[in-house]
């Protein structure tokens, strides 16, 4: 009985509403944080940063954002790619227009701009529901991508139509541009992930989170008992877009450094982030991480096994990768329809009983 809750009593409401009510979970959380903040930065190299950890962290932010909208508030969105593009282009314009201001502020502001755009595109959600809304958010997706591609002001009239992140420093260390050390890239993303996860956690366990969930579970009843649907939906769109915008800004400035809107923030990105939260678990912060990990790390792992270990032709491995990822998604669903987060919860419940199952 390594993992247990017996004897773990709460004597205050504060203690009762904390993020990890169980002591063991708390210890696990702090160990993870310690490793993430104090160990990984010292051992990370370029490959681990650019291929695995940085994209994983950024997708986790985007997934948290979309999970707030879809998982907590029940509004299915396929505009994530477009909103990420807003974050990226806002960040680019801010970076190049006000080069003396700290990039961290630019990234947060980019999130804020995205929040405004997101709330504006959230307006139809007051009339349109369910899958119809999902398809309506595609209008945002296609329009935004077209706009950033078409209006040269957004890419500072560069001949190529690409946007390039110039070098910016935080505390004397480059965090964007080619000479960014891997650990700095990683740490800035980790900082924003931690921040976003914290904010998301606080919002979802409080009043506003309950109003989102109420709208998700039964919107009419929610309104009748006093939830303002306009406010709940628009705040969900705004908060969600804020995170997605930060993810887009980081994706452009820290991770890729150069971006073309149609290719990087196309419809595929919207679907990918949606897949992450569904696979990870709707309405779960942990699920956002799990889903991002599943779809970022699994393909790389499969490729490594197929190409480097088994020595198979790369194209066969790529095809098998699709087959395996697809089959795994279906398999997990049949075993546990509520995503990896639920699977994890069930595993923990089993652990609580282990080794005495009754």
């Amino acid at each position: 009985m390594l993992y247990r809750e017996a004897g773990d009593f709460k004597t205050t409401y504060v203690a009762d509403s904390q993020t990890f009510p169980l002591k063991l979970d708390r210890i696990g959380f702090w160990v993870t944080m310690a490793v993430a903040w104090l160990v990984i930065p010292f051992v990370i190299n370029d490959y681990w940063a650019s291929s695995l950890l940085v994209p994983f962290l950024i997708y986790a932010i985007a997934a948290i954002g979309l999970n707030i909208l879809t998982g907590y508030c029940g509004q299915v969105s396929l505009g994530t790619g477009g909103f990420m593009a807003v974050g990226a282009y806002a960040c680019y314009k801010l970076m190049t227009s006000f080069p003396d201001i700290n990039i961290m502020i630019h990234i947060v502001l980019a999130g804020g701009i995205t929040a405004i755009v997101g709330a504006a595109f959230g307006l139809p959600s007051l009339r349109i529901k369910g899958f119809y809304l999902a398809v309506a958010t595609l209008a945002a997706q296609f329009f935004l991508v077209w706009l950033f591609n078409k209006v040269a002001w957004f890419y500072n009239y560069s001949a190529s139509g690409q946007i390039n992140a110039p070098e910016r420093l935080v505390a004397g260390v480059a965090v964007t541009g080619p000479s960014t050390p891997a650990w700095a890239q990683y740490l800035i993303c980790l900082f924003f992930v931690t921040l976003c996860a914290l904010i998301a956690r606080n919002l979802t366990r409080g009043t506003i989170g309950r109003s989102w969930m109420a709208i998700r579970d039964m919107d009419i009843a929610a309104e009748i008992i006093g939830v303002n649907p306009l406010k709940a939906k628009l705040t969900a769109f705004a908060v969600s877009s804020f995170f997605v915008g930060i993810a887009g800004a980081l994706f452009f400035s820290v991770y890729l450094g150069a971006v073309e809107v149609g290719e990087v923030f196309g419809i595929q990105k919207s679907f990918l982030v949606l897949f992450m939260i569904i696979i990870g678990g709707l309405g779960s912060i942990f699920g956002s991480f799990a889903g991002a990990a599943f779809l970022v790390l699994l393909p790389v792992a499969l490729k490594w096994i197929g190409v480097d270990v088994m020595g198979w032709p790369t194209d066969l491995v790529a095809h098998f990768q699709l087959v395996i990822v697809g089959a795994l998604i279906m398999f997990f669903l049949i075993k546990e329809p509520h995503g990896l987060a639920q699977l994890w919860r069930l595993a923990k419940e089993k652990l609580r009983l282990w080794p005495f199952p009754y």
Partner: protein
Amino acid sequence: MSADFLYGIEVVLNGLMAGVLYALVALGFVLIYKASGIFNYAQGVMALFSALTLAGIMSGQVPFAHLINAIFGTDIHYFGWNVPVLAAIILTLVVMVIFAWCVQRFVFRHLVGQEPIILFMATIGLAYFLEGVGDLMWGSDIKTLAVGLPQGGSLWVEDATSGLGGDDFYGFFIDKLDMVATVVAIILVAGLIAFSQYTKQGRAMRAVADDHQAALSVGISLNFIWVLVWSLAGLVALVAGIMWGAKSGVQFSLSLIALKALPVLMLGGFTSIPGAIVGGLIIGVGEKLFEYLIGAPFLGGATENWFAYVLALLFLVFRPQGLFGERIIERV
């Protein structure tokens, strides 16, 4: 009549034809959604897969040749025969029925009664899976579909109408392929309607669409019905795959035509076959006309992709129940 006006009419005509092609894709979504409440994300990939299978069978390709060669060190690619079109289409349909059975047996039978979002997600997995299998089976090169469909503008229409305008007007351009697509779409829809009205299976299908429980209680096998609708969706996917593939060759991008169907579905509703047709026509005409009148002259072009969605969105904001939906009365 002025040439500009006539060209406007030409744009509308071609928009209608394009709309038929969009509707063909949307139809597959509607069939499955109506009968089982599944929003089938894999419909586009099914179109790709069925067209790949058809092209592969016709040219006598060995399935999984690349895989077999990689494992056994062999060098096989083709059986060395060509299968006639009709036989190949029938064989492809057999493959699609087997596929439908597998989908039902191995995936959705285990997910009965789950929430729509979970069913949707399962189709995402299915899309990945099928895309991978399609590549493994038939390779990822572009295949030419020589099923004997006519191509090119109809000279007859062009000649007959060239006198309408002045010297600047060259007559209406109507693609022969589009005309065939229209005819095929009409036959397909008529066939589907006849099937659902006049056959036992069709009536059972409609019963299931109306009420699962009630259908079960009168002894209809849900399993059978679902295999049936997935097979029908496979048929629709094949037709859409042939029509689109005739233009571009059969290639990966064929799976992206699903995106063209989404605004149509928004407009026409996920459960209405007439909605899919009329929605397709409205989207086709709307986006082409917008590009002709506003997009190309004032906005720098390439507006069709987003305008289709904006059109559907505007429509829904003013009429949330869609084209043929009944007025929604909310209850608690």
